Every structure is written in structure tokens, then in C-alpha cells.
């Protein structure tokens, strides 16, 4: 144990650490297949569409509803255009990450 750490623990009257893991940034999430399965589920499509109709109906009337979930969350409308690979979670997360790096979200 480093001396400064030991000193700190002594001052805190503790004998060991309690490690805290910080939550991953959403853009750092691994794309587990179950995530994509959920997002692609038509019932989640319906749920997302109903909960975010205002976010999508005027600007992107043809957008798939699941795109609206994340576009509503992150304001990334380019991620949800119909007919491309936007429903692919990996692509979507990459775009969100890119937008974050550009300071757009």
C-alpha cells in the first residue's frame, strides 16, 4: 500500500478501501446482443413511438420509433433516418459518441 494511501486511511480511521466504480458513459456501453434484441422488438418500437411522438412526428415523420428514443434523449436526429443502419445499436452508439465529442450533445 502506498504510504499516502495508508496515511489517508489512518486519518479516516479505516483499514481498507471501498472501491467505487463509476457508471460507464452511455457511449462506452458494449453492445450486448440482448440490447439490440430489445431495441428491435416491435413492442418497444410502439412504446418508444407513443412516448416520444412529439419528438419525431413533425421533423422525421418516417423515422423508426426506436430511433426516437435515443434521438429524444440526445437530440441526434441524423441517427434515425429510415432505410439506413440506424437501428443497429453499434452504429447508433458510435454516432452518439461522435456527436458528444463534437460537443453537439
Amino acid at each position: 500500500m502506498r504510504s499516502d494511501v495508508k496515511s489517508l486511511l489512518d486519518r479516516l480511521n479505516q483499514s481498507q478501501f471501498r472501491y467505487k466504480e463509476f457508471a460507464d458513459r452511455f457511449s462506452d456501453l458494449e453492445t450486448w446482443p440482448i440490447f439490440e434484441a430489445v431495441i428491435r422488438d416491435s413492442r418497444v418500437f410502439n412504446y418508444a413511438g407513443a412516448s416520444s411522438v412529439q419528438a419525431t412526428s413533425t421533423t422525421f415523420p418516417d423515422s423508426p420509433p426506436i430511433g426516437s428514443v435515443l434521438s429524444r434523449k440526445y437530440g441526434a436526429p441524423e441517427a434515425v433516418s429510415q432505410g439506413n443502419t440506424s437501428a443497429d445499436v453499434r452504429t447508433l452508439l458510435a454516432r452518439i459518441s461522435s456527436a458528444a465529442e463534437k460537443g453537439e450533445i
Partner: protein
Amino acid sequence: MALLLIGGLRSGVGTTTLAANLAVALAASGRSSVLLNLSRCSTLGLHFGLSADQPLPGFDAPAAATGPINGVLLLDATVQGQTGDLGEGLSSGDFSFKGETIHIVDLSGADDGVAAQLRPHADLELCVLVPNAECLYSLPATLEVLPESAVFLLNRVDDTRRLGRHAASFVRELLGDRLIGAIQADEAVGEAAAMMQPLSRYAPSSAALADIAALANRLASLPMHQQTGAHDPASRSDAA
């Protein structure tokens, strides 16, 4: 709030344990708390030091025959739920869950029909899930069935586990404001159950209890959303 339904997205997510400890937390915060059981094989009594063969007082039992344990009044409404009397009584105004007392209904093990008859009278429905693949897989079907006003709670959140951390983040993004809280995974929860005690008694400084207490405070402060309102309030004992 007067009537809170707590169900699990699937079995084994800790619904009954949460319902029990939430009821105790509400009672500890000064709220009158009633916990209703709707299942013949419920484990609610475990968290209150009752043996498995010790029946809970019936919902129609005289008030004098019942008494709180750890501040919570436990009642068994299994029969009334199965016969439909619970929903009918609420609809007819024979009894009401309105008022300052918070009635928590543990839907674990109850038929879907029981939840359906209570749903119109509930102020809030809480669906418990854990951050694992099984719950994620079941989530679309649940979103389709539950009313839009239902909210979710993540139980057994463990940020030290990679999948659990990612699944929790995914659920947070997907559900947004409908996810009203999270309870940390805490071995004290299981240990308290093994001690046949509520968490607040066995491990008052546990991390999970702090989360449950925060949830209790949040629920107690929520406005009522009860859809019915035409019936005059009547106490449960009036119906008994």
C-alpha cells in the same frame, strides 16, 4: 398516495423483499403502512419474523384481531383477490384505500386477474426488475401490458459487475423518467431475510436500506393518480 401495487417484471427479482422493507421504511418515516398479501405461497412473513405456518390476519378480519409488526399491518387478501371481491369492493365503495395510510400490495405470485382488478384503483404501480439479460428479454412484453403510468425500479444494482452495469445503463436510457429508483445489490438484504428480520433492524446502515428509504420518501411525496373518485371513503374495518 394510498394504494401502491408492487410486482416483478419476472419472478425472483426481489419483489416481496422490497415490498416488505419498503413498508417498514414507510412506517419508520411516520406513515401508516399496510402490506397486503395476495399469494398463498408468499414469503412476506419471513421479513417480519413470522414462521411459514403462521397465517397472516385475513383482510376481512376484525380490526381488533390485527396489529402492526415493525410498524406494518400485514393482511392476507388472497381469497378476496381470487374471488374478485377486492376489486368489486373497491368499485362499489364497500371499502377504500384512500387516505393517508399507504397500502402496499405485493403482486408476487398473484394471478394477472388480481392485478387487473386492482389496477384501476391504484395510485401507482411499480414494476421491479434487475439488470440482467432475462429481465431485458422480458421487458418488451411488460411494456406492452403495463399501463403507461406504471413506473419501474431497478433492484440489485451492482456497478462492480460489467454486465450489470451496462444493463442498468441500458434500462435507464430506455425507460427514462419511468425508472424512479435503484436499489444497490447488498448481501445484507439476504442476510436480513435469513435472520427473519426487516433490513432496518438487521442492518440499519446498509446501502440497500438507504436506497429503500430514499424510495419510500419519494413515493410518500408523490401526488395521487387514482382513477376512481366517485366512491365515498370507507375504512377496511367497515367492510369487515
